[in-house]
């Protein structure tokens, strides 16, 4: 798209949306949000950048192929379940670890890891579809 306003705003908008998507992802454990929604927000950020800057630039900026990102997501989601192997609990049982960092207590858990996996799977899949469709708009310039 050639409008100057959109092309100027789009990179900033994309950055804000990606940061917001990570916020939504991490918030999702106890409050509305989570990997799926966060992934959708990040994928729309990528799609917006694609409309503004062209698909080739997005692919360069992403560095990894979207499908590889999706595969990575599925892989960590599966791996988060495998961590409970050897703990005498079934697959996908939530395991928790917490550490003290100054005043704040930070907890990491396998459900969070699973959610991060979902996030990557959604980002990868949806942006692969969006980029393929946008490429079509460019007149199949690949």
């Amino acid at each position, binding site marked *: 798209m050639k409008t100057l306003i959109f092309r100027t705003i789009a990179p900033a908008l994309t950055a804000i949306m990606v940061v917001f998507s990570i916020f939504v992802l991490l918030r999702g454990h106890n409050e509305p949000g989570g990997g799926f929604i966060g992934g959708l927000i990040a994928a729309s950020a990528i799609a917006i950048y694609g409309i503004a800057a062209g698909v080739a630039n997005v692919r360069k900026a992403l560095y990894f192929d979207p499908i590889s990102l999706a595969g990575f997501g599925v892989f960590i989601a*599966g791996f988060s379940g495998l961590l409970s192997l050897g703990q005498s609990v*079934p697959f996908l*049982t939530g395991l928790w670890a917490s550490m003290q960092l100054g005043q704040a207590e930070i907890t990491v858990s396998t459900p969070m890891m699973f959610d991060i996996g979902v996030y990557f799977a959604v980002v990868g899949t949806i942006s692969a579809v969006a980029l393929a469709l946008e490429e079509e708009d460019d007149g199949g310039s690949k």
Partner: protein
Amino acid sequence: MATQTGTHTELDLPQAMLETATAVSEWNLILPVVIALMAGALLAMIRHSRGSQFGFSVLAVLVILVIEIDLFWQVLETGPVVMTMGNWLPPFGISFAADIMSASFALAASFVTLIVLVYFQAEIVPREVRHGFYPLVMLLLAGVTGAFLTGDLFNLYVWFEVMLISSFGLLIIGGRKVQLDGAVKYGFLNFLATTFFLVGLGYMYGLTGTLNMADIALLAPSAPVAPMTAVAAIFLLAFSMKAAAFPVNAWLPASYHTPDAAVSALFGGLLTKVGVYVLLRIMIALMPASRELFDPILTTIAVITLITAPMGAIAQTNLRRAIGFLVIGGIGAVFAGMAIASLRSVAGATFYAFHSMLTMTALYLVAGLIERVTQAKDTKQMGGIYAANSPISIMFLILVFAAAGLPPFLGFWPKLLITHGAIAQADWLLVFAVLFNSLLTSIAGTRLWAHIFWRPGREGAHSEIPNDHLRKLNPTESRMALGSTMVLVGVIVVLGLWPNLLFESAGMAAGQLLQPQLYIEAFGLQGFSPDILSTGGAS
């Protein structure tokens, strides 16, 4: 992990978590699916490095195969095993469960996948690897294995989707026009079936408040009869479509011959059998009362499928299309076993489905070899291979006899069990249909054999002139494709000559299906009374 202790009673809340320890050995129930899924994901990440894909996927399938052999022995020795994810109490947590039927089918599925992966080395095109052939095969295996091993109906739906999406990918991966045509028919009808399945699931949840298979088996007798029958009817329609039973089977011969032979083989061996598996599970184990009401319908479906399918095969000249009709004929045999529903016939039905997974895959693989040697897809253009390549002709004949159910090949034993069951109940129509199916299938098979192998040349004026379109298999093809097919056919012959293990396990599988007591107990649900649900405190 069958027992639970109620430490939450002091809170006056129903218990929500299982508190028994899970041994690492119990993980063999979930690992096949997890490994297939993670291997698929990893292969998708590295799909541009072509060299590692084949070795890695074969390694993953080998590991899965070993784990499933272990699982099969465990189930054979100790009865059904169950693992409920995340330690939630079974009707609420998602359970995986394996009895003998599911464990043996999962084992057959991974073995068939291994053979097909090796076979595919002969017809590989770099473009297909780049478009993700190996990840799709692994995801297909994950979907099929998940469908066999899950103990929850909604989870089953998820695995069906995984299977469906990866099969779409595999169906169109070559990008030929005829593949797209086949994929549209396949996709539309399968989406329709999946939608029916989902509708049925919604009603089922509304009626019983649960989607856990063992819980449904417990609650179904006390649920209102008319709505339950309606749900069973929706499931019957949905899975008949998936299994390609008459009259909802048009998609199978329209699509299965379009992709590469290895992909056809994978589909013919695995996909319809998942539909059959679910029907056996739902009709025999979960909703036996509704099945009794459907007796005339099941008999009609069985008889018409048994008789029309091999007739379709006789009428076809496209080799792989003809084999598609033979796949459908086998589905009719399973329906016959389901319609009789005695111990013997259900054993026959599960045995037949197992046999069909191996035999139909092998038939498609041999068809692929024939197409390579003759450079044609239509039997009219084939001929004279008997002289050119005798191993192929011998394998084809063995497989046709196995499919028709002639002794001493593998297909004979399940058909014997089904026929025996039908005679015991004096169901002469089914006896006739099963035997007539064998006759028609052998006619179809021998007709193909005569056209492809016996006739010296191509059809018409060339028929007495030696076929000049034949070519020799190149070294890769003979090593990978011919070799892997020979291994599979060898296994089929050995299992046909020594069927004792399969007989025994099919009998036990049928026992577990007809009396699901052990299956339910393995979930830890025995004595779980429905009124815990109605008091509503268990959320």
